[in-house]
């Protein structure tokens, strides 16, 4: 089939594809504009470590120590005190209705008990129905309280401050400030690339069949390979543009570092684009209409979001789900991006991911080529 490959015909298909891309304003906008909007929207909107959570307080004791605890919590910026409650019922009601995520109860005679060494308990009732909303705050809580207490207890009382049996040390690697955008922005690149590359390739090819132009094309001497490459290459170009825009925004707007090897990134990125184009091509061999192509592409995107480790920690999934996740190209690209951008990875650090992408590519292309030959007839 490659015999007699004509650069001229390939160039003609390529040129035609660019003209069509330029004329189809909505799709063109979708390819360049939407990813940028998504980057800004999700980059700023998604926060796995939310702050300023509405909190109510029940002050059973109003001494300086109690006030220091409350002030310490407020200063941590996790908790935003919205007011005081009297009695347990009121606090419970607020939690149930969702007007508060936390209710802090300082027991009566708290300060006296601390001084006497009775180890009084501060009760923090947290709305754990959304653990990701309150988890960060809860984790930080004991540290905050300890600091507040030790700063207030001075002189002979200072010994009491050391008495809590344990203290928590939170050590955040690679993302010392715990900023979600550092984690989410590189991940978004993987998701947006797979979304646009798969969908647009699938739709672009099915469009020829649906509009009947494929019949005209096949009736000319043009070779399938010339058509395929000519149609796919413009979208590789789009992928490059998306990535450049993305990296620029990630660095300038979100301050995401790029620690590692550009080569490692470049290799992973190109492989990932090719895998996605092959996947789009495979979808186009199965879909009968552009609508079907869109729907099928969409089903490949959900696993890319949910099983790749983009949204939920990969290690937290059960074994079978990890197995499926391994077959998702975005899983490996996501690791490449995070390793290279955040952890300073070199080519040697990402060879496992690169090989995984190659393996996926071989399988997808093989199936796609088999199917494509059949659909010609």
């Amino acid at each position: 089939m490659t015999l007699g490959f004509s650069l001229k015909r390939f160039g003609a298909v390529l040129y035609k594809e660019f003209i069509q891309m330029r004329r189809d304003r909505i799709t063109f906008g979708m390819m360049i504009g939407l990813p940028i909007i998504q980057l800004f929207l999700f980059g700023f909107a998604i926060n796995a470590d939310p702050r300023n959570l509405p909190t109510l307080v029940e002050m059973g004791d109003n001494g300086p120590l109690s006030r220091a605890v409350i002030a310490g919590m407020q200063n941590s910026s996790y908790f935003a005190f919205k007011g005081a409650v009297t009695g347990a019922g009121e606090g419970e009601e607020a939690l149930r209705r969702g007007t508060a995520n936390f209710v802090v109860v300082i027991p009566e005679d708290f300060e006296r008990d601390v001084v006497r060494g009775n180890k009084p308990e501060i009760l923090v009732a947290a709305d754990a129905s959304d653990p990701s909303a309150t988890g960060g705050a809860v984790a930080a809580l004991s540290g905050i309280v300890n600091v507040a207490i030790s700063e207030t207890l001075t002189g002979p009382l200072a010994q009491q401050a050391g008495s809590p049996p344990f203290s928590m040390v939170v050590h955040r690697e690679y993302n010392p400030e715990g900023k979600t955008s550092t984690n989410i922005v590189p991940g978004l690149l993987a998701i947006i690339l797979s979304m646009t590359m798969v969908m647009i390739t699938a739709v672009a090819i099915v469009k020829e069949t649906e509009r009947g132009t494929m019949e005209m094309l096949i009736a000319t001497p043009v070779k399938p390979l010339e058509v395929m490459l000519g149609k796919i290459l413009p979208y590789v170009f789009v992928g490059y543009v998306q990535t450049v825009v993305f990296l620029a925004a990630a660095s300038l707007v979100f301050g995401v570092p790029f620690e590692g090897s550009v080569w490692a990134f470049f290799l992973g990125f190109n492989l990932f684009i090719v895998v996605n184009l092959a996947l789009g091509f495979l979808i186009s061999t199965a879909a009968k209409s552009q609508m079907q192509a869109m729907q099928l592409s969409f089903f490949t995107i959900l696993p890319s979001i949910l099983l790749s480790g983009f949204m939920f920690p990969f290690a937290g999934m059960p074994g079978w789900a990890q197995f499926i996740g391994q077959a998702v190209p975005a899983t490996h690209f996501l690791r490449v991006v995070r390793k290279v951008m955040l952890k300073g990875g070199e080519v040697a650090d990402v060879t496992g991911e690169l090989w995984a992408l190659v393996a996926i590519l071989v399988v997808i292309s093989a199936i796609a080529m088999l199917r494509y030959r059949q659909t010609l007839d």
Partner: protein
Amino acid sequence: MSEPLVIDVHGLTKNFGPKRVVDHFDIQVPKGAIYGFLGPNGSGKTTTIRMLCGLLTPDEGEGTCLGFDVRKQAEQIKEQVGYMTQKFSYYEDLSIRENLDFVARMYRLDRRKQRVDRALADLGLADRQKQLAGSLSGGWKQRLALAACLLHEPKLLLLDEPTAGVDPKARRDFWDEIRRLSAIGVTVLVSTHYMDEAVQCDFITYIAYGKKLIDGPSAKIPEMVGLETWRVEGPELARLEDRLLTEPGVVQVARFGTVLHVSGTDKAALGATVERLKAEGTHRWSLQVAGLEEAFIYLMTGARDNFAGDGGKAAA
């Protein structure tokens, strides 16, 4: 071309799943002929044309198109065939010029700009060349499609219902163009539903349910079908029509405006019936030469019986 036959295929068969779409189809098309390809919808015309130009590989059968093997030399056939699809198959979001230019590049034509310019001038679209093809009316789209498939000066034109949905004036112009091409030696195979187009063809083949029912020079088709036709004029034709269908010897009654064409294959039986009715004196009867139209109505209604019985004889 020393080869006298441009298309010469035998036993072409194509199945789509369990359905046999084309069943042992033979056709011999001489150079420069206009060959009409008739048959009801779904009879396998499009599939046959696609097999002839190498878009589909036949399941059975063999033969040559322009001297190349239809099974193995699709590439060479494509270089010299102009195929016009039933549905407009050029890019609606490209301009007229861009479409022609694209097609010219697909065939790697030399003097591309010149050829495209000439095609645009012939079309009368030179001043609208930047218009998008999608904004053209049906008739113009058809002209653009014809111009596009003529760009590489093919020796054989395969036209699949080229005039569907085109107004009568444009159809007439289209057929003038086809005859001009035929005169300079281009062979044309054209499928159609229109009888007025069928009569323009030098040869006609009729296909139904994937099988060929009849094939021959168009002037001889009525004779080959073997119909005798009487023309009837007079009052209350609808009642007469119902009555005629029960009479012996009458196979078909077709109404053309204010006259009925009564046909049958058994001349004696039909003659006797006509004599009897003539005696009633209510209608005027006259014997006339059976036309293509009656022949095709006959073929279409009797398709099944036909290929069970005397269809083979008629086609031979």
